[in-house]
């Protein structure tokens, strides 16, 4: 089979042009600035920290779905992580306010009777954590 090549377009085969190099640099800059942008815009909610009686007991990633049982002062509190949200599923405390809190994606859930505290956040936003509810 004979191949015909259009003469006018033969220059295209001459390797990389200045515009090619500029395009590579531009794309690199775009993607790197994208990384920086995302790091600054979405810093929240990267892991779940569970404290029992004031001591850090567990540290779990927010993006993996799990259910764990945490041994508190008066019994076991079951914490469930699903779809980047956290809830307390079961609790031995009398009025179950922590359970009624439902799914939470930022801040914290605190169960005072059982002394179980669940914090959501990356390591950098520890100082501005807010307590959503205190279950007495």
């Amino acid at each position: 089979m004979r191949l015909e090549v259009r003469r006018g377009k033969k220059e295209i085969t001459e390797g990389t042009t200045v515009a090619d190099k500029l395009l590579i640099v531009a794309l690199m800059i775009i993607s790197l600035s994208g990384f920086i942008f995302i790091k600054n815009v979405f810093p929240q909610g990267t892991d779940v920290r569970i404290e029992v009686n004031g001591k850090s007991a567990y540290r779990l990633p927010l993006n993996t779905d799990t259910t764990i049982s945490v041994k508190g002062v008066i019994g076991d509190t079951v914490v469930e992580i699903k779809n980047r949200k956290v809830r307390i599923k079961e609790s031995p405390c009398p009025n179950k306010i922590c359970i009624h809190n439902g799914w939470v994606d930022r801040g914290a859930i605190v169960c005072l009777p059982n002394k179980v505290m669940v914090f959501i956040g990356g390591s950098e936003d520890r100082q501005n954590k807010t307590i959503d509810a205190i279950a007495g």
Partner: protein
Amino acid sequence: MQLQDKYRIALLSAYAIAIHSFENLLPTPIPWLRLGIANIITLATLVLYGFRSAMMVTLIRVILSSIFIGTFLGPGFIMSFGGGVISTLAMGLTFSLLPRLFGPVGLSLIGALFHNIAQLFLAYVLFVQKLEPILIVSPILILLGTITGVVNGFIGGMLIKNIVKRSNS
């Protein structure tokens, strides 16, 4: 369309399907990461035989290899189809509007970029419907697309040079 063009498209499509299917067998560190080696064929077709042939080769490649792999009309096919058509369209437009500005590497980069943009858009509209994961993934995709785009562009350039040399001698 002349008979010779049909032969050419058939031959190039066969190469593209083989590469595309082979690429699907390669294990990748991230499941949705593809090297896009089949784009080399589209690139060479575009530069040597024009936009219509390139689009034809892309369409045949995407549809037939999805039938061979068994993903026809599935979510993977929709992503692959959208990405292929948009990237060929972008490369074709660049090539005909700005004929001598970009070499093979530049065209390949534009193809890779628009492939990623199309797939991110489709993923957003059809599957994810949340902006946050799309935004988080896009810089990684653009960076990887740039790397594979440059490599594919170089290989495509060598292929084009070779075909031109052989057909002239």
